[in-house]
């Protein structure tokens, strides 16, 4: 049964959103999903770019409001 974990990095300064996303992803296994709540545009780009490069799937990027997003990543 795949896990689903939420990580809230709203308010965080760079590079913590990326750092925490990597850290949380390391704890997950194949097929698990990680939901990341982000409110900084640069962090949104950093996290999705890292996930693509690392081979994880970017399932969705949803805009929640003004400069606020929910990203769903699936562990490769």
């Amino acid at each position, binding site marked *: 049964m795949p896990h689903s974990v939420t990580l809230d990095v709203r308010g965080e300064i760079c590079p913590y959103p990326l750092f925490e996303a990597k850290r949380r992803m390391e704890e997950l296994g194949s097929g698990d999903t990680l939901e990341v709540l982000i409110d*900084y545009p640069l962090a949104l*780009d950093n996290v999705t770019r890292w996930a693509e490069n690392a081979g994880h799937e970017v399932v969705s990027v949803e805009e929640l409001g003004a400069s606020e997003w929910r990203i769903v990543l699936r562990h490769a």
Partner: protein
Amino acid sequence: MLLSGLVVGLAFGYALQRGRFCTNTAFRDVLLIRDDTLLRAWALAVAVQLLGVTALAGGGWLPVTVPPLWLGANLLGGVAFGIGMVLAGGCSSGTCYRVGEGLAGSLLALIGFGVGIVVMAEGALAPLQEALRRPLSTFDGEAPTLPGLLGVDPWLVVLPLLVIIAVWFWRSGRSSYRSGGWDWRAAGVALGVVGVAAWLASSAAGRPYGLSMTGPLRTWFEALFGGSLTLDWGSLLIVGLLAGSFLSALVNGELRWRVPKGSRLLQSGAGGLFMGTGAQLAGGCTIGHSLTGLSVLSLGSMVSTAAILLGAWATAYWLFVRPMRRMLRTTTAPGTPAAVGRGT
């Protein structure tokens, strides 16, 4: 004439926000994610200024001031600034534009920066600054520059440097870096042009220097700590910078009040203190030294920039690279394919 500081500041703030330009990010990402895109933007901004300032000064149209060389102060101050900017998540310019975007952590870092400046300039740490700034190294009675030291025409240093930068860009190929803002080339050229404009406007207002943050922030914070405020070109530059990044974030839908957890706020404030004391000691930060001072090939600015890099890389390694490596070792058995070739 003073009002031109406000105008240049507005352009500076807008370009920083659109270009996502922060020397902390530029220096740190080379180590952290092995990406030199923002470092290229920085080098391009330096190159544009080198070209513009050398031509203007050579033609006798621009009086230039060269930042002094105080070896001890440049080194110690630079390292402290480098540590501080990684802790705070932004250098002086990066911190200011993020205040404009609404980051509470950056606001605290800015306050720490100002307090640090005042403590070093005239507070408890003033004796340290005085002692470390005493051995002033001069060359023919002037602050030393690389061409002065070599005894050659400035162009003989500037042109090879521009060639080296061009070869680096040419060999770099396409960058996968996206920031949702300007491309690194646009950011670099814009900041370089703003830098040259700053030299011209500021000199016309009786301040023969380009973009800088530490002196102007000192003006504001000394006034806050009981002094009187004299509005000058630099202090208006800061107002313009904050307003420019705020307006840029506002019109691009990126303005938001963002508050991190308490421990991160403390970290940002502490980082600001390190940055302020370091920048004041070294006589400048990554803007005054690593952008403007390098454009006049000041040896003091070169030493300071090297020290800032050292402090920043050591701190980024300790804060981010090392914990990530340690974690990879615990989650992945050593020697398995997954543990190999995965960066931090």
